[in-house]
Protein backbone atom coordinates (compact mmCIF):
# COMPACT_ATOMS: atom_id res chain seq x y z
CA UNK A 1 0.00 0.00 0.00
CA UNK A 2 2.73 2.42 1.04
CA UNK A 3 4.91 1.71 -2.00
CA UNK A 4 1.98 2.00 -4.38
CA UNK A 5 1.04 5.35 -2.96
CA UNK A 6 4.64 6.54 -3.15
CA UNK A 7 4.97 5.45 -6.79
CA UNK A 8 1.66 7.09 -7.65
CA UNK A 9 2.79 10.38 -6.09
CA UNK A 10 6.15 10.17 -7.84
CA UNK A 11 4.60 9.60 -11.27
CA UNK A 12 2.11 12.38 -10.63
CA UNK A 13 4.97 14.75 -9.83
CA UNK A 14 6.89 13.72 -12.93
CA UNK A 15 3.77 14.24 -15.03
CA UNK A 16 3.21 17.73 -13.64
CA UNK A 17 6.85 18.61 -14.17
CA UNK A 18 6.72 17.36 -17.75
CA UNK A 19 3.53 19.30 -18.46
CA UNK A 20 4.98 22.56 -17.17
CA UNK A 21 8.35 21.95 -18.81
CA UNK A 22 6.76 21.27 -22.18
CA UNK A 23 4.64 24.42 -21.98
CA UNK A 24 7.55 26.62 -21.00
CA UNK A 25 9.77 25.20 -23.75
CA UNK A 26 7.02 25.62 -26.34
CA UNK A 27 5.95 29.12 -25.45
CA UNK A 28 8.78 30.88 -23.65
CA UNK A 29 12.30 29.47 -23.54
CA UNK A 30 14.15 26.33 -24.42
CA UNK A 31 17.75 25.20 -24.57
CA UNK A 32 19.15 23.50 -27.64
CA UNK A 33 22.60 22.28 -28.52
CA UNK A 34 24.19 23.55 -31.71
CA UNK A 35 25.82 20.94 -33.89
CA UNK A 36 28.26 21.51 -36.69
CA UNK A 37 30.50 24.42 -37.51
CA UNK A 38 28.26 26.32 -39.91
CA UNK A 39 27.83 29.13 -37.34
CA UNK A 40 31.48 29.33 -36.29
CA UNK A 41 32.88 31.57 -34.80
CA UNK A 42 29.59 32.57 -33.10
CA UNK A 43 28.91 28.99 -31.98
CA UNK A 44 31.24 25.99 -31.85
CA UNK A 45 34.33 28.01 -32.65
CA UNK A 46 37.34 25.74 -32.76
CA UNK A 47 40.84 26.57 -33.78
CA UNK A 48 41.24 23.21 -35.40
CA UNK A 49 38.31 22.47 -37.64
CA UNK A 50 39.35 18.91 -38.39
CA UNK A 51 38.99 17.78 -34.77
CA UNK A 52 35.60 17.01 -33.35
CA UNK A 53 34.65 19.46 -30.64
CA UNK A 54 34.69 18.29 -27.04
CA UNK A 55 31.36 19.88 -26.26
CA UNK A 56 28.74 21.45 -28.46
CA UNK A 57 27.55 24.90 -27.49
CA UNK A 58 24.19 24.99 -25.76
CA UNK A 59 22.10 28.05 -26.48
CA UNK A 60 19.01 29.67 -25.02
CA UNK A 61 16.16 30.09 -27.51
CA UNK A 62 13.30 32.49 -26.85
CA UNK A 63 9.88 31.94 -28.40
CA UNK A 64 8.21 35.30 -27.76
CA UNK A 65 9.09 36.42 -31.28
CA UNK A 66 6.72 33.78 -32.67
CA UNK A 67 3.66 35.79 -31.63
CA UNK A 68 4.29 38.59 -34.11
CA UNK A 69 6.84 36.95 -36.45
CA UNK A 70 8.82 40.18 -36.32
CA UNK A 71 12.51 39.72 -37.00
CA UNK A 72 15.47 41.98 -37.65
CA UNK A 73 18.60 41.75 -39.75
CA UNK A 74 21.25 39.82 -37.89
CA UNK A 75 18.92 37.79 -35.66
CA UNK A 76 20.14 34.24 -35.09
CA UNK A 77 17.14 31.93 -35.47
CA UNK A 78 16.28 28.26 -35.13
CA UNK A 79 14.17 27.00 -38.02
CA UNK A 80 12.74 23.80 -39.34
CA UNK A 81 14.60 22.66 -42.45
CA UNK A 82 12.50 23.13 -45.60
CA UNK A 83 13.79 19.88 -47.08
CA UNK A 84 13.33 17.73 -43.97
CA UNK A 85 10.80 18.76 -41.34
CA UNK A 86 12.47 16.65 -38.64
CA UNK A 87 15.70 18.68 -38.80
CA UNK A 88 16.27 22.03 -37.14
CA UNK A 89 18.95 24.46 -38.23
CA UNK A 90 20.51 27.53 -36.61
CA UNK A 91 21.40 30.38 -38.95
CA UNK A 92 21.54 34.17 -39.10
CA UNK A 93 18.91 36.23 -40.93
CA UNK A 94 20.63 38.42 -43.52
CA UNK A 95 17.62 39.38 -45.61
CA UNK A 96 13.99 40.21 -44.88
CA UNK A 97 11.00 40.57 -47.24
CA UNK A 98 11.68 43.14 -49.93
CA UNK A 99 15.48 43.05 -49.61
CA UNK A 100 17.69 42.53 -52.64
CA UNK A 101 20.20 39.73 -52.28
CA UNK A 102 22.98 38.88 -54.67
CA UNK A 103 22.92 35.17 -55.38
CA UNK A 104 26.44 33.83 -54.99
CA UNK A 105 26.68 31.46 -57.93
CA UNK A 106 25.45 33.37 -60.92
CA UNK A 107 25.78 36.99 -59.71
CA UNK A 108 22.06 37.42 -60.14
CA UNK A 109 20.19 39.77 -57.84
CA UNK A 110 16.96 38.36 -56.40
CA UNK A 111 14.35 39.92 -54.17
CA UNK A 112 13.25 38.14 -50.98
CA UNK A 113 9.51 37.40 -51.40
CA UNK A 114 6.82 38.49 -48.98
CA UNK A 115 6.75 36.43 -45.78
CA UNK A 116 10.18 34.92 -46.42
CA UNK A 117 13.69 35.57 -45.17
CA UNK A 118 17.24 34.91 -46.31
CA UNK A 119 19.36 32.93 -43.84
CA UNK A 120 23.11 32.34 -43.92
CA UNK A 121 25.60 30.70 -41.63
CA UNK A 122 28.41 32.80 -40.20
CA UNK A 123 30.93 30.33 -41.57
CA UNK A 124 30.03 30.76 -45.20
CA UNK A 125 32.47 28.12 -46.39
CA UNK A 126 30.80 25.31 -44.46
CA UNK A 127 27.15 26.23 -44.38
CA UNK A 128 24.09 24.80 -46.10
CA UNK A 129 21.74 27.75 -46.21
CA UNK A 130 19.66 30.07 -48.38
CA UNK A 131 22.48 30.27 -50.89
CA UNK A 132 21.63 26.73 -51.92
CA UNK A 133 17.96 26.34 -50.93
CA UNK A 134 16.72 29.89 -51.55
CA UNK A 135 14.63 32.07 -49.25
CA UNK A 136 12.69 30.23 -46.52
CA UNK A 137 9.20 31.06 -45.19
CA UNK A 138 9.16 32.91 -41.85
CA UNK A 139 6.58 30.36 -40.68
CA UNK A 140 9.32 27.73 -40.39
CA UNK A 141 11.14 29.73 -37.70
CA UNK A 142 10.88 28.11 -34.28
CA UNK A 143 12.69 30.65 -32.08
CA UNK A 144 15.42 33.25 -31.70
CA UNK A 145 18.79 32.50 -30.11
CA UNK A 146 19.66 35.01 -27.39
CA UNK A 147 22.41 33.58 -25.16
CA UNK A 148 25.05 30.89 -25.02
CA UNK A 149 24.60 29.03 -21.72
CA UNK A 150 27.17 26.22 -21.97
CA UNK A 151 30.18 25.63 -21.82
CA UNK A 152 30.89 28.08 -18.94
CA UNK A 153 33.83 29.83 -20.59
CA UNK A 154 31.66 30.84 -23.54
CA UNK A 155 28.57 32.03 -21.64
CA UNK A 156 27.34 35.31 -23.06
CA UNK A 157 24.86 37.19 -25.16
CA UNK A 158 24.53 36.51 -28.87
CA UNK A 159 24.76 39.83 -30.69
CA UNK A 160 22.71 40.99 -33.59
CA UNK A 161 25.62 41.61 -35.90
CA UNK A 162 25.92 41.49 -39.62
CA UNK A 163 29.11 41.55 -41.59
CA UNK A 164 29.56 44.64 -43.76
CA UNK A 165 30.17 42.85 -47.02
CA UNK A 166 26.89 40.98 -46.74
CA UNK A 167 24.66 43.93 -45.98
CA UNK A 168 21.74 44.00 -48.39
CA UNK A 169 21.54 46.80 -50.89
Amino acid at each position, binding site marked *: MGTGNFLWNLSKNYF*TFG*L*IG*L*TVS*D*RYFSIVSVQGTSMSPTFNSHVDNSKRPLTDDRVLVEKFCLE*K*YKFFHGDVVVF*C*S*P*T*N*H*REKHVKRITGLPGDWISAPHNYDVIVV*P*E*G*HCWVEGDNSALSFDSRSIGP*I*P*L*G*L*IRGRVTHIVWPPNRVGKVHRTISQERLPF
Partner: protein
Amino acid sequence: MALQNLRELTPIFKEGFGLTLRVAKFFCSLHVINSYLCTFALSQGPSMLPTFNLTGNLVLAERLSTRLGQAGKGDVVLIRSPREPRKVVIKRIVGMEGDTVSYVNSDSKNADGKEATIVVPKGHIWIEGDNKSLSRDSRLFGPVPYGLLEGRVFWVMWPPEDFGSVGKKST
Protein backbone atom coordinates in the same frame (compact mmCIF):
# COMPACT_ATOMS: atom_id res chain seq x y z
CA MET B 1 6.79 38.36 17.75
CA ALA B 2 7.88 38.38 14.12
CA LEU B 3 8.51 34.65 14.28
CA GLN B 4 5.02 34.15 15.66
CA ASN B 5 3.51 36.09 12.75
CA LEU B 6 5.52 34.08 10.26
CA ARG B 7 4.30 30.83 11.77
CA GLU B 8 0.73 32.02 11.49
CA LEU B 9 1.20 33.06 7.87
CA THR B 10 2.79 29.79 6.69
CA PRO B 11 -0.47 27.93 5.99
CA ILE B 12 -1.73 30.88 3.94
CA PHE B 13 1.43 30.83 1.83
CA LYS B 14 1.12 27.10 1.41
CA GLU B 15 -2.45 27.35 0.30
CA GLY B 16 -1.64 30.16 -2.13
CA PHE B 17 1.20 28.17 -3.60
CA GLY B 18 -1.02 25.13 -4.02
CA LEU B 19 -3.68 27.18 -5.76
CA THR B 20 -1.15 28.79 -8.13
CA LEU B 21 0.24 25.38 -8.97
CA ARG B 22 -3.21 24.02 -9.72
CA VAL B 23 -4.04 26.96 -12.02
CA ALA B 24 -0.65 26.63 -13.76
CA LYS B 25 -1.22 22.90 -14.22
CA PHE B 26 -4.62 23.57 -15.74
CA PHE B 27 -3.27 26.04 -18.31
CA CYS B 28 -0.29 23.83 -19.09
CA SER B 29 -2.62 20.89 -19.76
CA LEU B 30 -4.68 23.11 -22.04
CA HIS B 31 -1.57 24.14 -23.95
CA VAL B 32 -0.27 20.58 -24.29
CA ILE B 33 -3.64 19.23 -25.47
CA ASN B 34 -4.07 22.14 -27.87
CA SER B 35 -0.63 21.87 -29.42
CA TYR B 36 0.00 18.11 -29.36
CA LEU B 37 -3.43 16.48 -29.63
CA CYS B 38 -6.11 18.54 -31.30
CA THR B 39 -7.25 22.09 -31.80
CA PHE B 40 -10.21 24.08 -33.06
CA ALA B 41 -10.00 26.20 -36.17
CA LEU B 42 -12.36 28.47 -38.06
CA SER B 43 -12.56 28.15 -41.81
CA GLN B 44 -13.02 31.42 -43.63
CA GLY B 45 -13.53 32.51 -47.18
CA PRO B 46 -14.51 30.76 -50.37
CA SER B 47 -11.33 28.80 -51.06
CA MET B 48 -12.54 25.45 -49.69
CA LEU B 49 -16.06 25.41 -51.20
CA PRO B 50 -17.92 23.00 -51.28
CA THR B 51 -16.20 21.15 -48.40
CA PHE B 52 -16.62 24.14 -46.09
CA ASN B 53 -19.23 26.82 -46.61
CA LEU B 54 -18.83 30.54 -47.12
CA THR B 55 -19.99 31.72 -43.72
CA GLY B 56 -17.34 29.72 -41.91
CA ASN B 57 -17.19 26.34 -40.23
CA LEU B 58 -15.80 25.47 -36.85
CA VAL B 59 -13.55 22.47 -37.45
CA LEU B 60 -11.53 20.13 -35.27
CA ALA B 61 -7.94 19.36 -36.31
CA GLU B 62 -5.58 16.79 -34.85
CA ARG B 63 -1.86 17.44 -34.53
CA LEU B 64 -0.54 13.89 -34.25
CA SER B 65 -0.41 12.89 -37.90
CA THR B 66 1.37 16.06 -39.00
CA ARG B 67 3.87 15.80 -36.14
CA LEU B 68 4.59 12.17 -36.98
CA GLY B 69 4.81 12.87 -40.71
CA GLN B 70 1.71 10.81 -41.51
CA ALA B 71 -0.29 13.47 -43.33
CA GLY B 72 -0.77 12.36 -46.91
CA LYS B 73 -2.35 13.06 -50.25
CA GLY B 74 -6.02 14.09 -50.07
CA ASP B 75 -5.96 15.25 -46.44
CA VAL B 76 -7.42 18.61 -45.49
CA VAL B 77 -4.78 20.40 -43.45
CA LEU B 78 -4.14 23.53 -41.43
CA ILE B 79 -1.04 25.19 -42.81
CA ARG B 80 0.82 28.36 -41.91
CA SER B 81 0.65 30.64 -44.92
CA PRO B 82 4.08 31.02 -46.56
CA ARG B 83 3.22 34.59 -47.54
CA GLU B 84 1.78 35.76 -44.22
CA PRO B 85 3.38 33.84 -41.32
CA ARG B 86 0.78 35.09 -38.83
CA LYS B 87 -2.09 33.48 -40.69
CA VAL B 88 -3.07 29.81 -40.73
CA VAL B 89 -5.06 28.65 -43.75
CA ILE B 90 -7.00 25.49 -44.59
CA LYS B 91 -6.16 23.69 -47.83
CA ARG B 92 -6.05 20.18 -49.24
CA ILE B 93 -2.82 18.28 -49.95
CA VAL B 94 -2.71 17.44 -53.65
CA GLY B 95 0.83 16.14 -53.94
CA MET B 96 3.57 14.84 -51.65
CA GLU B 97 7.32 14.98 -52.34
CA GLY B 98 8.23 13.27 -55.60
CA ASP B 99 4.71 13.48 -57.03
CA THR B 100 4.10 15.05 -60.40
CA VAL B 101 1.47 17.77 -60.32
CA SER B 102 -0.18 19.45 -63.31
CA TYR B 103 -1.81 22.79 -62.74
CA VAL B 104 -3.04 25.91 -64.48
CA ASN B 105 -1.20 28.98 -63.28
CA SER B 106 -3.57 31.15 -61.22
CA ASP B 107 -1.26 34.13 -60.98
CA SER B 108 -3.39 37.00 -62.26
CA LYS B 109 -0.43 38.81 -63.80
CA ASN B 110 0.67 36.10 -66.17
CA ALA B 111 -2.31 33.78 -66.31
CA ASP B 112 -2.00 32.32 -69.76
CA GLY B 113 -4.31 29.37 -69.15
CA LYS B 114 -1.55 26.95 -70.06
CA GLU B 115 -1.07 23.84 -68.01
CA ALA B 116 2.27 23.45 -66.27
CA THR B 117 3.76 20.31 -64.75
CA ILE B 118 6.06 20.21 -61.74
CA VAL B 119 7.68 17.55 -59.59
CA VAL B 120 7.23 18.40 -55.90
CA PRO B 121 10.74 18.75 -54.39
CA LYS B 122 12.02 16.87 -51.35
CA GLY B 123 10.38 17.78 -48.05
CA HIS B 124 7.68 19.84 -49.74
CA ILE B 125 3.98 19.35 -50.43
CA TRP B 126 1.59 20.77 -53.02
CA ILE B 127 -1.59 22.32 -51.56
CA GLU B 128 -4.71 23.53 -53.33
CA GLY B 129 -8.12 24.75 -52.25
CA ASP B 130 -11.18 22.77 -53.31
CA ASN B 131 -12.57 25.81 -55.09
CA LYS B 132 -9.94 26.16 -57.80
CA SER B 133 -11.17 29.51 -59.11
CA LEU B 134 -11.04 31.37 -55.79
CA SER B 135 -8.06 30.01 -53.93
CA ARG B 136 -4.57 31.33 -53.36
CA ASP B 137 -2.49 28.20 -53.02
CA SER B 138 0.49 26.35 -54.46
CA ARG B 139 -0.54 27.34 -57.98
CA LEU B 140 0.39 30.88 -56.95
CA PHE B 141 3.39 30.40 -54.63
CA GLY B 142 4.64 26.94 -55.53
CA PRO B 143 5.29 23.94 -53.29
CA VAL B 144 5.47 24.63 -49.54
CA PRO B 145 7.75 22.98 -46.93
CA TYR B 146 6.19 20.20 -44.84
CA GLY B 147 7.31 22.03 -41.69
CA LEU B 148 4.57 24.62 -42.19
CA LEU B 149 1.82 22.05 -41.53
CA GLU B 150 -0.06 22.65 -38.28
CA GLY B 151 -2.67 19.90 -38.21
CA ARG B 152 -5.06 17.65 -40.12
CA VAL B 153 -8.73 18.63 -40.18
CA PHE B 154 -10.94 15.62 -39.45
CA TRP B 155 -14.27 16.85 -38.08
CA VAL B 156 -16.73 19.70 -38.66
CA MET B 157 -18.31 20.89 -35.42
CA TRP B 158 -20.44 23.82 -36.53
CA PRO B 159 -22.95 24.53 -38.12
CA PRO B 160 -24.95 21.49 -36.97
CA GLU B 161 -26.20 20.53 -40.43
CA ASP B 162 -22.59 20.01 -41.60
CA PHE B 163 -21.61 18.08 -38.46
CA GLY B 164 -19.55 15.08 -39.51
CA SER B 165 -16.15 13.84 -40.54
CA VAL B 166 -13.93 15.36 -43.22
CA GLY B 167 -12.46 12.64 -45.35
CA LYS B 168 -9.73 12.22 -47.88
CA LYS B 169 -10.53 13.11 -51.43
CA SER B 170 -8.40 12.39 -54.44
CA THR B 171 -8.56 15.06 -57.06
